[in-house]
């Protein structure tokens, strides 16, 4: 497919004909390009800014570090101080106190300076111009030239204040005025209202008002005319100067002032720091002020010659205090608090006294009795009674489990011991009688010992008797069971006989089984039949050979025609065949095949019918029993195997051998199994 395209010129021509603008072929100045440029510039700017920030932060960091280092310079807490005697407590204390004082002084100076500044600032602002327009509640003539008076704002209600504005008064002056007035009033009151003489007129120089005795109440307010500070400025000048109150106004200091200053300097402040903190360390002077030391204390002071003491001594020397003479160390006690020690000692003494008192004669008697009882107990344990030891515990545990099992063996043992003559099969009853007797005797003996276990032992003995009878019936020459208690197991390595014996012992191979007997019978019959068959075969072969020989002879005979010969041979063959068949029949007449179907699983175990069926079934259906069932079966097999491998002569824990060892150790033919003081049984 061809693409239709036009060149720029052609397109432009077409555009011209269509009335469109020509193509703009100039390099790209599109908005996209501009945007890109902008973006680029913006990015650059940002990068630059980031870089600058980084640099700035780095500078700041380094500056900070420098500052930190500056603060960190100098000696740290852990480092040694610049003084060489840094171990000296006294000097250190002194130094630290000095520092503290300096610090406090510096702080005080600073505060003072601040206050001063504040004052100055205030003063600079607050001069007499500020007071212009304020009313003073006193007469101008009340203020003396050069006198310093402190004026305060007068107490007034809000209404009054609104009406009159603020008013300045001097408390002392008002007080004085009031006092004067009171005195006058009193005088007036004391005086009768009317006096014959108009003395008042002359004395006070004032014309009396009408009913002037009542004027005094009003008079208090009448008296103070007051003046306004700003208004009477010129007149007030002297007073205002007094108000400003600077001694520099007066020029040089007067003698009185100098005296005043001197007195001030020598003044003793009666204030003292009530909340004085207890300090960790007192210098000797301080210590003397704060503590009253007893004479003894001085004596018992530690001889440790530390610098504090030396200094103190030196000071003491300087002050004329006698030096403490050397004291015998043995006399010294290194105890700080005498009183405490004394009280402790007292307490100790009291405690000991108490314990001693407690031990009354009764107590002693009791103690004695106790000790005696202890001795008695020890004696008892030595004499016999109940002694619990490892062996006794072991034996007592054994007794409960073996009491029943062990008894059957005993009577037979008794028979062996008591009647050593061999027991004959011909007279079983007699031997039984004898046995019974011996058993009875034995049990009687036992009864004498045991006492309270008569019935039980009797029953046991009877039981044992029965068993013994059975055994004797089964086999007259049966070995005594006692020997089997711990007989040696026959070794398999010795031979087939011993192996058989072992198997028999373990019960893996039973003799005299009915099935086995049957089988053996069948086998013997088969063997017989086989022998018969072989014999017959041999006879037959012989006969055949004879017949052949006869034939050969006949062949040699000339008279013997071919036809005859054929006929004869045929006959002969027939006969022989018949004979063979007869023979076969006869042979099979009493043929009993020995067939035993045996199924054996993968691990070589013989299977019984059920198991064999299961195996076949599994093979047929192509599935086996589940995990649990399989495990169960395996466990069963394992158990059987273990049972087989177990020793048949002893218990798993080797009890019989333990008994034997015990017997050997005890040197006796029996073991006494006892629980507590009751003897259960004794076995060989």
């Amino acid at each position: 497919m061809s693409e239709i395209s036009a060149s720029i010129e052609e397109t432009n021509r077409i555009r011209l004909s269509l009335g469109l603008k020509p193509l703009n072929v100039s390099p790209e100045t599109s908005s996209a390009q501009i945007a890109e440029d902008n973006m680029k510039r913006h990015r650059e700017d940002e990068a630059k800014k980031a870089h600058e920030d980084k640099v700035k932060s780095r500078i700041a960091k380094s500056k900070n570090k420098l500052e930190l280092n500056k603060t960190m310079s100098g000696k740290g807490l852990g480092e040694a101080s610049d003084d060489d005697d840094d171990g000296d407590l006294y000097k250190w204390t002194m130094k630290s106190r000095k520092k503290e004082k300096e610090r406090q002084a510096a702080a005080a100076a600073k505060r003072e300076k601040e206050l001063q500044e504040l004052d100055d600032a205030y003063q600079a602002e607050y001069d007499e111009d500020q007071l212009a327009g304020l009313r003073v509640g006193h007469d101008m003539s009340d203020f003396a030239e050069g006198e310093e008076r402190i004026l305060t704002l007068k107490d007034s209600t809000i209404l009054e204040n609104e009406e009159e504005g603020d008013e300045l008064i001097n408390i002392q002056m008002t007080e004085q005025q009031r006092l004067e007035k009171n005195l006058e009033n009193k005088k007036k009151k004391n005086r009768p209202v009317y006096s014959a003489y108009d003395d008042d007129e002359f004395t006070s120089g004032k014309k009396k008002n009408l009913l002037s005795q009542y004027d005094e109440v009003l008079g208090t307010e009448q008296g103070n005319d007051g003046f306004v500070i700003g208004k009477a400025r010129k007149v007030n000048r002297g007073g205002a100067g007094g108000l400003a109150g600077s001694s520099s106004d007066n020029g040089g200091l007067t003698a009185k002032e100098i005296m005043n200053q001197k007195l001030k300097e020598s003044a003793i402040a009666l204030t003292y720091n009530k909340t004085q903190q207890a300090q960790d360390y007192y210098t000797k002077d301080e210590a003397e002020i704060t503590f009253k030391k007893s004479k003894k204390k001085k004596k018992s002071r530690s001889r440790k010659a530390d610098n504090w003491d030396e200094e103190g001594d030196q000071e003491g020397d300087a002050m004329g205090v006698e030096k403490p003479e050397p004291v015998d160390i043995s006399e010294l006690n290194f105890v700080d608090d005498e009183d405490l020690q004394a009280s402790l000692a007292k307490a100790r003494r009291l405690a000991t006294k108490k314990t001693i008192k407690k031990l009354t004669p009764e107590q002693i008697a009791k103690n004695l009795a106790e000790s005696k009882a202890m001795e008695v107990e020890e004696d008892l344990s030595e004499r016999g009674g109940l002694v619990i030891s490892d062996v006794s515990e072991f034996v007592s545990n054994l007794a409960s489990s073996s009491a029943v099992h062990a008894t059957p063996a005993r009577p037979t043992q008794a028979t062996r011991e008591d009647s050593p003559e061999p027991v004959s099969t011909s007279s079983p009853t007699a031997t039984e009688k004898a046995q019974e007797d011996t058993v009875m005797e034995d049990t009687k003996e036992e009864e004498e010992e045991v006492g309270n276990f008569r019935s039980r032992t009797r029953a046991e003995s009877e039981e044992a008797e029965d068993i013994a009878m059975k055994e004797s019936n089964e086999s007259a020459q049966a070995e005594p069971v006692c020997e089997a208690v711990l007989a040696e197991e026959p070794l398999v390595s010795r031979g087939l006989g011993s192996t058989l014996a072992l198997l028999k012992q373990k019960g893996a191979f039973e003799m005299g089984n009915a099935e086995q007997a049957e089988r053996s019978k069948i086998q013997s019959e088969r063997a017989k039949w086989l022998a018969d068959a072989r014999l017959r075969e041999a006879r037959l072969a012989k006969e055949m050979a004879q017949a052949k020989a006869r034939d050969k002879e006949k062949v040699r005979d000339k008279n013997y025609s071919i036809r005859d010969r054929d006929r004869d041979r045929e006959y002969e063959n027939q006969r022989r065949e018949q004979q063979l068949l007869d023979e076969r029949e006869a042979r099979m007449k009493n043929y009993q095949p020995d067939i035993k179907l045996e199924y054996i699983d993968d691990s070589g175990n013989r299977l019984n019918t059920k198991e064999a069926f299961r195996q076949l079934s599994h093979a047929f259906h192509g599935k086996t029993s589940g995990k649990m069932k399989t495990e169960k079966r395996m466990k069963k097999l394992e158990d059987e195997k273990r049972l087989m491998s177990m020793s048949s002569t002893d218990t798993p824990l080797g009890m019989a051998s333990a008994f034997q060892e015990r017997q050997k150790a005890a040197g006796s033919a029996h073991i006494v199994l006892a629980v507590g003081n009751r003897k259960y049984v004794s076995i060989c």
Partner: protein
Amino acid sequence: MIEVICNDRLGKKVRVKCNENDTVGDLKKLVGAQTGTNWEKIVLKKWYTIYKDHITLDDYEIHDGMNIELYYN
């Protein structure tokens, strides 16, 4: 200047040079001139969007080298 390829998939494929600020109508006129068809019969499409005559290529975001479907009515 951009180049736009218009294809009707019937045998005509036109490469048209135009300005970005040309309208779709202008483009149609150019296509018509190059292929020899009446521009009023031309329909330019992209999927189901039919481009309208009075709107510029820039507004439709038609850039250099783009393919536009060419139909006729």
